[in-house]
């Protein structure tokens, strides 16, 4: 015969077991959530003598990759790279160009915006030599469970547009980046995907910094827009 104290104790144990089982079950059903956060090294670059406006869209700043599983037994993946993208690109661009102005909206949209906050309005828009718009076109990943390889991999594809201040095109090109982390790294799947994403982002920065001045149309534009040939102060921001 069990007394009430023993019954209460047993009930508490059962409740604990139930909560534990439920949390295990829920954790098994949830998505693999990866938030890529990293500091990137200061690039060693000789700044190009131009003043560039840079537009990073909200989609870019909050970029999140979501991959739903093909089968019910698999877990979905959510990889948030937006914050790391902004950190990387700002670091690269600040050192690649002599002057950088971050635009909250593109010139064609500025007049339509009533309240643009910190946006450089058309009246306040400083004189710039070009507007650079990087966009993330694609992100793909591979994990050992999918490929039978021994590495975690991330591919990134960017579309980069360089326009004149009046938004007429100078050049447009695509750029890829790749990062991998060996399985032997002894990380969990989420940490390994994050590490691979950081490697891919470093690669993206390296690819852009090294190859930007080599794009033929950019070379021509750079020759025409040297700051020393046409000082910014001549028609710059009041």
């Amino acid at each position, binding site marked *: 015969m069990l007394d009430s104290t023993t019954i209460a104790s047993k009930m508490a144990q059962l409740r604990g077991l139930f909560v534990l089982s439920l949390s295990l079950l829920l954790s098994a059903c949830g998505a693999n959530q990866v938030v890529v956060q990293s500091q*990137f*090294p200061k690039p*060693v670059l*000789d700044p190009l003598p131009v003043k560039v406006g840079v537009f990073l869209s909200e989609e870019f700043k909050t970029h999140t990759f979501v991959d739903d599983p093909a089968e019910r037994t698999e877990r979905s993946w959510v990889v948030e790279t937006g914050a790391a993208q902004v950190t990387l690109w700002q670091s690269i661009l600040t050192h690649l160009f002599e002057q950088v102005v971050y635009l909250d909206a593109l010139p064609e949209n500025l007049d339509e915006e009533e309240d643009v906050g910190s946006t450089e309005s058309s009246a306040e828009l400083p004189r710039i030599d070009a507007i650079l718009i990087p966009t993330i076109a694609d992100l793909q990943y591979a994990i050992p469970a999918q490929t039978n390889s021994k590495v975690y991999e991330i591919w990134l594809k960017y579309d980069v547009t360089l326009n004149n201040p009046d938004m007429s095109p100078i050049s447009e090109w695509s750029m890829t980046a790749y990062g*991998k982390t*060996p399985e032997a790294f002894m990380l969990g799947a989420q940490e390994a995907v994050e590490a691979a994403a950081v490697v891919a982002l*470093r*690669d993206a*920065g390296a690819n852009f910094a090294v190859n930007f001045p080599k794009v033929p149309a950019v070379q021509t534009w750079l020759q025409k827009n040297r700051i020393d040939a046409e000082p910014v102060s001549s028609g710059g921001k009041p």
Partner: protein
Amino acid sequence: MKLTMNLIRNCITFAGALALQGCVTAKIDEMTYNRPEAGVGASSVVLLGRRHASDYDTEKDFVQCVRQHIQRRDETIAIIQEEAFLDQLYPWFEPRTAPMHPSAIKELLGQPAVANKLQELDTQYMIWIDGNTERVDAAGSMTCGVGPTGAGCFGFGTWSDASNYEAVIWDFSNLAEVGRINTSTSGQSYMPAVVIPIPIIAPVQGTACEGIGEQLLQFLSASY
């Protein structure tokens, strides 16, 4: 209970005593010239792993092992840590952008920011290590179980690993290659298990690390 604990302790001690090393075959080829007779002095050396191949990466821990081997034997040799060097010269030594030939260093030095940074680091030799260790064969099977009276394994496993590494030495003072060291090692590891698995590991990568490390030490150090 005490008897069981003693038994387990004795078994672990026995297994530890039996943790033998497997045999490794190693081959080292060396070709170096313009060796610094007085050593590298106050200048620094950097050891970097090649990671541009699609199917393998030179392991970071191998590069670290070689660096530690050299510095353990001659503390006077200043070797910049790989990650610190890559960060300080980002983005010029990433897998995509790293120079593949000494002549490419000339181009890099044409950029004032890079030239200043390299001058600041006072790098005399840049040593690129390219290669990896891979499992070439594995056989056998092992079964482990846990019961109310204890746990144990039974079976036999064996595998063989092979390493292939090449270290290429670039001299910064005359922007030329001054040496190449190749090492190939292979070895068979075994793991018999009767209740307790007894690993008999062939230190394939470790032997390759010591081989390359020793040859680099002889090149860089005035004491060897």
